[in-house]
């Protein structure tokens, strides 16, 4: 981008910004070191006895459930998102309208509200309604519907990034629209959207913590709720620190993966 009004050269400006950022960082660290009560920090955030009590359930139950909730919602979101994206690009106006409304609604609603509707609204409105796999099914659908709205927009951008000539070449070979989409356009779009969809997976990992609003048992609990409950029991934040670390164990490598994929695609251009 050109900035005609900038008086500094871009490089110089960047240098100043970096120096300022480091200064703020150093001040913040100094502040923490000087003003924190390190004894209390050790006791309330890194208490080994409390930490020992969190194992193994923090992994065998909480982490496992977080992974199940996330992945199942991801699969649901992927499928619905792709369908909604194709509807959004359809030549049939009704499909386009439905897709647009879907995206606007589920992208606009906080995931928390969707969970509340699934937890309290739907059971009242449809008394007989039971999701397969109970809690797991409910989460997969509720979180999946939210994820689908974001994924649909990602898929749409990916499909539109495929050159028009690809569809035309496929059609001129006699392929019907749906077949051309399935065999030619979508496979190429998927490659483009892998990095943003991996980002979406990271977001979902964190959003799966909202499952608590549905009410969870000892068997269906997930990382945040598990850590929170344990923290309340011991009046000590160590379990939360552990739960946080578990998220990072998953999300940091995923973030690394995204950067690798993006760099690779950047080179392929």
């Amino acid at each position, binding site marked *: 981008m050109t900035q005609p009004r900038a008086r500094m050269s871009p490089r110089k400006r960047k240098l100043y910004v970096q120096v300022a950022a480091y200064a703020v960082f150093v001040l913040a660290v100094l502040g923490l070191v000087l003003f924190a009560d390190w004894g209390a920090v050790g006791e309330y955030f890194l208490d080994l006895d409390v930490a020992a009590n969190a194992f193994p359930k923090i992994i065998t139950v909480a982490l496992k459930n977080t992974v199940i909730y996330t992945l199942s919602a991801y699969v649901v979101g992927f499928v619905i998102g792709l369908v909604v994206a194709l509807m959004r690009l359809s030549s049939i106006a009704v499909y386009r309208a439905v897709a647009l409304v879907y995206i606007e609604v589920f992208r606009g609603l906080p995931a928390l509200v969707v969970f509340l509707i699934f937890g309290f609204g739907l059971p009242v409105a449809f008394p007989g309604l039971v999701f397969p796999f109970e809690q797991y099914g409910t989460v997969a659908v509720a979180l999946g519907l939210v994820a689908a709205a974001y994924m649909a927009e990602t898929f749409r951008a990916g499909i539109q990034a495929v*050159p028009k*000539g*690809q569809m*035309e*070449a496929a059609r*001129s*070979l*006699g392929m019907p629209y749906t*077949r051309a989409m399935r065999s030619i356009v979508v496979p*190429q779009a998927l490659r483009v959207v892998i990095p943003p969809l991996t980002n979406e997976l990271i977001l979902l990992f964190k959003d799966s913590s909202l499952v608590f609003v549905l009410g969870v048992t000892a068997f269906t609990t997930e990382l945040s709720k598990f850590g929170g409950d344990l923290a309340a029991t011991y009046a000590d934040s160590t379990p939360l620190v552990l739960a946080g670390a578990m998220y990072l164990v998953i999300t940091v490598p995923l973030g690394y993966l995204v950067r690798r994929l993006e760099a690779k695609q950047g080179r392929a251009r």
Partner: protein
Amino acid sequence: MTPAVVISGLHKRFGDLEVLKGIDAEVQPGEVVCVIGPSGSGKSTLLRCVNLLEVPEEGTVVVNGVELTHRDVDIDAARRSVGMVFQQFNLFPHLTVLENLTIAQRTVLGRGKAAADGVARENLERVGLAEREGSYPAKLSGGQQQRVAIARALSMDPQVMLFDEPTSALDPELVGEVLAVMRSLADDGMTMLVVTHEMQFAREVADKVLFMDGGHVVEQGPAAQVVGDPQHERTKLFLSRVLNPNHLE
């Protein structure tokens, strides 16, 4: 003998812009017809109307006795008899050369793998690329990609082949190999409708040349006549520009 292609009274507009203003043209079986004309005159649009990539507002396109523009016609089925080669090749980058040639055979014509591979290999042979069947398009030169694109269209056994400036996106040294393939197709009796700026090709290979300007066919006739001895002022002007690109009037 029924003509291979009959275009009658064709009109096409994009919004307020009328691009084709009533085109009439015929291609006989086995004939090579070249379409020439200045940029923006509607050559690509005409070609794209012949396989309904663009739908004309008015007029008809009849291929081998079937009116493609009739609203009851199954457009996907109709397109099978018309092969198209694009300026930008438009090979499928995620598929190998062989898969590029077989995917439509298998999904559209319902050919089995062995049959489709057989047809594909025959056509790769025909364009001189038999040994590249396992390559991905990105690994090929532009000329090779365009030859694969021609083989891909041929693999559907079309009765008519459309070419939209097939050599315009190529480096000059790669043009010859593509024109050679097109020449051999013409020699084999393929019916071809070719939009091109290659006047020598038009003169030597075309049975008929159509000069378009401003959405009209201004002049048409045997290649020697239209290119060698044009009657209309606009044709003369266009040809003098194309044949002497450095000449400034």
